[in-house]
């Protein structure tokens, strides 16, 4: 069958082609627009906005990883903060205790959280709700280890005196340098994940997330791909986490409670499950909005909850879903 001449399909191919190219291209246009805003706005505004930009950036990296794992492959994690924590602590301990430069320490952090993710991923054999509960337990275990292994992590007092990021003789002395380093990581991760989702592996992830039995029935080794998606999501969380000690110049277990796990989940849900752009937008929204509602700080978790419910009721596919249906309507209107 595959030996049939290629020109046999050309008539069918031509009408379908433009829309399809549009879909792939649209992801890259959104990427360009989002990254332009993310790079320029905090630098232009400076000061506190630049600090917020730093906080958004590492959250966005972690949210992108969680989006692959939860939004695409459908493997819900209720303990993702654990992997941010493993990344943060591995980085700062490698830098302080072994004097390693940031890129090397960061690589170690990604490796450590990938390894922890791989261990957790073995639990996918627990079907249905049991895996989700196990991820919650995993988050609590890691938080307890960080809090109580005082000789290594300093316990609840945390780690102070974080050295600045240095790389081949260049040292990030200002907040702007740190922001640039984070944005380079975010841009690269975002671009690579767009490429991943557009190919065979990304389709396999989505197939598992949308109908596991059907995915298996056409030859996708579902367990292996679930493990890959989980490990990838955790490794990327580790990368995001490795910036945390540098942004806050301090790291303590309190950053990595289940509140943080929930926050990242809300980010990808409000942004739009399954959409990489949605993960970045959701991260920006849920970091920036609370800062401008400081007077209501004690109602922060309440506000998150209300925000999540409103988002799910009025835009079930998130902000990205609203955006793409607007784009489709606009695109259809233009066509003759």
């Amino acid at each position, binding site marked *: 069958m595959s030996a049939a001449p290629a020109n046999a399909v050309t008539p*069918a191919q031509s009408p379908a082609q433009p829309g399809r190219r549009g879909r792939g291209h649209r992801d890259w246009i959104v990427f360009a627009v989002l990254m332009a805003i993310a790079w320029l706005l905090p630098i232009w505004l400076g000061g506190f906005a630049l600090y917020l930009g730093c906080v958004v950036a590492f959250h966005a990296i972690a949210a992108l990883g969680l989006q692959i794992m939860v939004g695409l492959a459908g493997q819900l994690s209720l303990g993702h903060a654990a992997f941010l924590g493993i990344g943060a602590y591995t980085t700062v301990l490698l830098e302080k205790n072994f004097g390693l430069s940031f890129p090397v320490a960061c690589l170690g952090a990604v490796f450590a959280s990938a390894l922890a993710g791989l261990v957790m991923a073995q639990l996918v054999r627990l079907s249905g709700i049991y895996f989700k509960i196990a991820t919650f337990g995993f988050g609590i275990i890691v938080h307890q280890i960080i809090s109580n292994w005082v000789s290594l992590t300093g316990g609840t007092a945390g780690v102070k005196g974080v050295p600045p990021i240095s790389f081949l003789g260049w040292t990030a002395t200002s907040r702007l340098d740190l922001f640039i380093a984070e944005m380079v990581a975010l841009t690269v991760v975002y671009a690579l994940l767009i490429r991943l989702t557009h190919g065979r592996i990304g389709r396999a992830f989505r*197939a598992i997330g949308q109908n596991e039995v059907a995915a298996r029935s056409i030859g996708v080794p579902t367990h292996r791909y679930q493990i890959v998606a989980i490990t990838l999501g955790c490794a990327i969380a580790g990368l995001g986490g490795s910036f945390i000690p540098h942004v806050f110049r301090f790291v303590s277990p309190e950053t990595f409670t289940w509140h943080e796990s929930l926050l990242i989940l809300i980010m990808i849900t409000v942004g739009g499950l399954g959409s990489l752009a949605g993960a970045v937008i959701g991260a920006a929204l849920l970091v920036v909005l609370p800062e401008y509602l400081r007077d209501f700080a004690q109602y922060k978790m309440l506000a998150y909850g209300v925000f999540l419910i409103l988002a799910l009721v009025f835009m079930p596919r998130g902000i990205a879903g609203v955006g793409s249906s607007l784009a489709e309507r606009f695109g259809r209107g233009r066509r003759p």
Partner: protein
Amino acid sequence: MSNAAPILSLRGVTRRFGGLVAVRDVDLDVVPGTIHGLIGPNGAGKSTAFDLVSGVTPVSAGTIRFDGRDVTHLPVHMRVEAGICRTFQTPRLFEAMTVLETVLTGRHRHARCGFLGSMFSLGAKARDEAQQTEVALRLLALVGLDGEADTTVSGLSYGARRKLEIARALATEPRLLLLDEVASGLNPVETEFVAGIIRRLAAEGMTIVLVEHDMRFIMGLCERVTVLNFGARIADGPPVSVTGDEAVIEAYLGRPRTDATPRREARRQHG
């Protein structure tokens, strides 16, 4: 019986769910290149038999051989690699994908691009994607969905969903295609269209097993029919001989009235 070695061969295949025996000691041989029907009244174990052959459900006893090789304990994706693929009684699709993406997902085992290749490769990935897209579009043309390539699956009609599931299964390049009630829910025009596809595939050498309720559909297509009732095989042979078989008529229409009389008397004695 044809003298060609069977491509699929079941021996003593049994599946129990607790106390219920859904498939009981079934022997079945499917001749390569034929269209083989698997029929029987509701609850006869047809769909369970499909689940056992495709590997969705493990067998309780017996062996399944495909192309001379024992596949009884292979996981589903390995059976797909061996050349067995199936559709479901109710189509199971990826609702948020487009029609084209769905068929491309079926190309999973034939596409080359791996994990790192997806992210870092420049030319090889684009070439691979273009090649797979070409195959997928050809399959969509075969099932008459080439105009819907960019439609999202959740917006498809029931008939289109059936056809898409066939195209997705064909994308795995099966040698044995298992179609579970592929004509149910289709209008007569669509049914005839699907029958045409099945004939065409068989003519190209593919082996097809159909589970079906619609007797006319089965009789018009199949060269051989196996009848199940209460999980056991009660008849096997060409459609004409099977429809005349007394056990088959009984399974579908019940016993003649003379048999019912003593039972009624027995009930009366009890009361």
